[in-house]
């Protein structure tokens, strides 16, 4: 036993690892990422780079915000994230900037980052966690897994449990609600909506809303005004371009025969709350549920 410890100590010294500082040398942590890969860190990650604004937000929510050393452009939530050093944008990474930060964990965005660049990071021996959070369950489990890698399990677990509880509460409250047909407008020109696989559709479903374009094959399909008029949604919800931008909603008032316009069921929700799959989505979902309740009252 003693000999074994000596050998370990020698190896550690030989590798130049200053393991004593973190005090937990050899306690490797492994989790499974959203791509089904096993991701291991020798020691709790202390220099993390997040490769999408959403992933940055997840890491903060998991309590690992202080361990972030780099993020990509548009990572603006929470406010502290805006101060992080930038390593390019999510679709064009600056590998040199990343390596200069000597990360011990990179959290990549499945499908959002250039595959070749991420693979090069893996080849360089940097642990990479692929994140593909696109529903409440994955958001919650992502928090816990990221928390495990960063050794912030306590915060992560608490946030995840709270998220699960709030979602369950919403689900219970609206389980028997009358369905409301909804057109969710992502963008105006071109006119774009979301299909059934998007988390916003799941948020709608939680509140008893039915996405009118759920059957579309593209995640963010571009559609025509005519199709919206033809399907005549009972409510139109949009995040607009930013804070309380009513212009997109007002454009629909040109068609007073639409049910949504006639009933004044045109709703704005803060796009920040729904455009990323993060714990804030539950706040956005609460807003959606509130709006759909109003729709039912106006019937």
């Amino acid at each position, binding site marked *: 036993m003693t000999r074994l410890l000596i050998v370990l100590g020698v190896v550690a010294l030989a590798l130049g690892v200053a393991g004593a500082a973190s005090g937990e040398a050899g306690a490797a942590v492994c989790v499974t990422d959203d791509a089904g890969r096993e991701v291991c860190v020798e020691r709790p990650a202390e220099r993390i780079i997040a490769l999408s604004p959403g992933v940055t937000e997840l890491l903060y929510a998991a309590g690992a915000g202080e361990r972030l050393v780099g993020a990509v452009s548009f990572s603006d939530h929470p406010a502290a994230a805006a101060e992080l050093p930038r390593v390019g944008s999510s679709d064009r990474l600056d590998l040199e900037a990343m390596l200069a930060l000597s990360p011990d964990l990179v959290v990549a965005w499945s499908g959002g980052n250039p595959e070749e660049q991420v693979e090069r990071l893996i080849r360089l021996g940097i642990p990479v966690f692929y994140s593909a959070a696109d529903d409440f369950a994955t958001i919650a489990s992502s928090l816990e897994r990221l928390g495990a890698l960063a050794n912030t399990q306590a915060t992560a677990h608490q946030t995840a449990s709270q998220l699960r509880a709030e979602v369950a509460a919403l689900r219970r409250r609206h389980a028997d609600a009358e369905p409301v047909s909804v057109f969710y407008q992502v963008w105006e020109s071109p006119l774009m909506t979301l299909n059934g696989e998007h988390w916003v559709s799941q948020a709608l479903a939680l509140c008893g809303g039915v996405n009118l374009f759920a059957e579309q094959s593209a995640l963010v399909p*571009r*559609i*025509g005004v005519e*199709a919206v*008029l*033809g399907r005549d949604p009972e409510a139109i919800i949009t995040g607009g371009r930013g804070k309380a931008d009513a*212009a997109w909603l007002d454009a629909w008032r040109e068609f007073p*025969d639409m049910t949504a316009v006639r009933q004044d069921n045109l709703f704005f929700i803060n796009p920040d709350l729904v455009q990323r799959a993060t714990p804030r989505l539950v706040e956005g979902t609460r807003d959606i549920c509130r709006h759909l309740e109003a729709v039912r009252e106006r019937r």
Partner: protein
Amino acid sequence: MNDADFSFRGRAGRMPPLVWLLLAALLSQGLALVLGSVAIPLDALGAVLAGGGESLHRTLVLELRLPRALAAFGTGGLLALAGALMQVLLRNPLADPYVLGLSGGASVAALLAMLAGFGTSLVAGSSFAGALASTLIVFGLAHGTGSWTPTRMLLTGVVMAAGWGALISFLLTVSPVEQLPGMLYWLMGDLAYADSPWPVLGVAAASLLVMLPLGRTLNVLARGGLQAAVLGVNVRRMEWLLYLLASLLTAVAVTTAGSIGFVGLMVPHMLRLKLGNDQRLILPASLLAGGTLLTLADTLARTMVAPQQLPVGVITALLGVPSFLYLLYRSR
């Protein structure tokens, strides 16, 4: 009856092709009204056109399909007319406003406006200014200190177009992700942006009225500047007029529907292969055929994978390129 007789039979002799094209234009408009992501039975459509019908059908046909079909027609007509004029100006059957970098200038200006977060109307105004600025740059540089020649102008335009292309790539690279779909659709041409069909239709009609009496002069100009001068044409003034008019038409078209390629190049060329090169026939024929082509292409773009919408520029290319190549292959 040989072609020479045909060409010089006067008005009656040259009607048939225009009559056919007019019929095709009307047919395309009809098709654009019938087809859409919502199926409207023909009798319901008839009721709407007669002034009655269901309220939803009225909205769909009168407020969505009709203005858009007319805008498509006007835009296509403008692009084809501008192409026909540019080809005479440069004495090159393969010239068009896009080759000369006009749409590139318009695109860069439009993308900048989108990047700045401007609304539809400011994007349109910006693209108009961009097209005109590009016009002036190309013409100014082609003039330079030396003499003006079609080759020099074509080269200047091609190089400018390449420069604009690089700027477009740059702008797409630095733009936020959520802006990209709008930008890409604009770059490929999209009639969903067309607010009202009247500007394009008005400009198309007005420019045809200006150019028709000059048709014979253009015929002479197409044979070269010296030949035209000898036959009494004020070549310099005529070339300025052609260039400014073609640029204006392109600017209006681009402003209405984004940057739609191929129409200005293909339509006049295909017509020349079939009808000869009398501008008095080619100019109105280009207007009608360009309008018809774009109306059909836009109807396809709206309905092919409805309710999803495709950019119309992709359709014009997919329709136009094979038929153009076929005609070219068949013509000696």
